[in-house]
């Protein structure tokens, strides 16, 4: 299975009926494709919409109905629109149950870096800092390693997104949580051994007696 699809399928299992959820761009966007139809999840787009629907059919797009990247989307029955102050009030005020974000690095204590690479890539943080500071639960969806280098690091070398640690990291190899502030291996991906995860993880990982395989 494609690594991105493994991640998206596993993250989708974290969503519960009634949750207000904000998905970042990249792998997090894919999560919406794997939410069971009977699960009533509200997806927020931070440019001012709760109730985002799929990409409209050819010829049905409207220039005033877009996602945060400016791409056409649709709105589900029961959708609500609002201005940016309301949108970030929802985010910062703890009304968003789950945010799923991409990551460049997550460290041994759960701190996330995902908004800039000094001297190379300075796009700006957009809504990421508010999402990590304010959402009830923060899930990072990212590849375990990039070009053979672990993205789960002992200490972030890139600028932090927030002083608040994330709750869960889902990669193509593992699910990692931070009980007691320590990176802990909670699950391994299908066909991946604990040893293989440890071999490509720079941060020290606590390994419980039993580590179940991801159910996807």
């Amino acid at each position: 299975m494609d690594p991105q699809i493994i991640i998206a399928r596993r993250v989708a299992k974290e969503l519960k009926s009634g949750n207000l959820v904000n998905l970042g761009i990249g792998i997090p966007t894919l999560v919406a494709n794997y939410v069971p139809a009977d699960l009533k999840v509200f997806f927020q787009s931070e440019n001012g919409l709760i109730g985002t629907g799929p990409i409209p059919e050819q010829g049905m797009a409207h220039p005033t109905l877009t996602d945060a990247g400016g791409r056409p989307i649709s709105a589900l029955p029961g959708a609500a629109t609002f201005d940016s102050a309301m949108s970030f009030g929802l985010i910062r005020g703890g009304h968003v149950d789950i945010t799923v974000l991409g990551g460049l690095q997550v460290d041994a204590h759960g701190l996330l870096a995902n908004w800039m690479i000094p001297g190379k890539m300075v796009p700006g943080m957009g809504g990421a800092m508010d999402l990590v500071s304010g959402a009830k639960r923060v899930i990072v969806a990212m590849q375990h390693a990039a070009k053979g280098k672990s993205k789960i690091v002992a200490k972030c070398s890139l600028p932090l997104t927030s002083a608040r640690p994330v709750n869960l990291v889902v990669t193509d190899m593992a699910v990692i949580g931070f009980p007691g502030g320590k990176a802990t291996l909670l699950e391994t991906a299908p066909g991946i051994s604990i040893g293989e995860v440890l071999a490509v993880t720079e941060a020290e990982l606590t390994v419980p007696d039993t580590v179940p395989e991801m159910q996807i």
Partner: protein
Amino acid sequence: MKAVSVEEAVAMIPAGASVMVGGFMGVGTPERLLDELVRQNKSGLSLICNDAAIPGRGVGKLFDAALVAKLTATHIGLNPKAQQQMLGNQIAVDLVPQGTFVERIRAGGCGLGGVLTPTGVGTLVAEGKRQIEVDGQSFLLETALRAQYALVHAFLADYLGNLAYALTARNFNPIMAMAADTVIVTVENIVPVGVIAPDHVMTPAPLVDYLITNG
């Protein structure tokens, strides 16, 4: 509210002015005002806008024409021209978290000196800012943001200047319409008074200084 042509409206804006522009990735942006800023070559602008859009669209046109001297925004990653101008030190860029950006503008429009936000504590964003403890939690003091001009785009305006916005084209527009000395508005449709029901007015008429006539 005074109804004016787009040429007259932009002629009022001096080169080097501070200008807030509504829109999110060019959605809900007053394109006609931006085209006219380019045509009248209003350079040295201090631009306050969520993002830099993309070349050829929205505020992206101002970067195409190299009219921006200073930019306050949350994200410019999708406009390579704005990135180049920043890395080449042609424009000074202040990157602000999006929730902080909108609250600073809201504060500017509501008579507040600023806001206290947890966003950015313990990050590069906190550098040079006052950190204030309230009930044991740390907040950054983020100061209010205003401009000389707000350029706003709405879906409906009535003859008095009451405004309503459409879907995700609302975004920063109603907030910016409170936070500038002079508010200039373009709209999709101008309709008789009463067509926008009182409960559906999102920006009340007294906030609008100039409405750009259509056609």
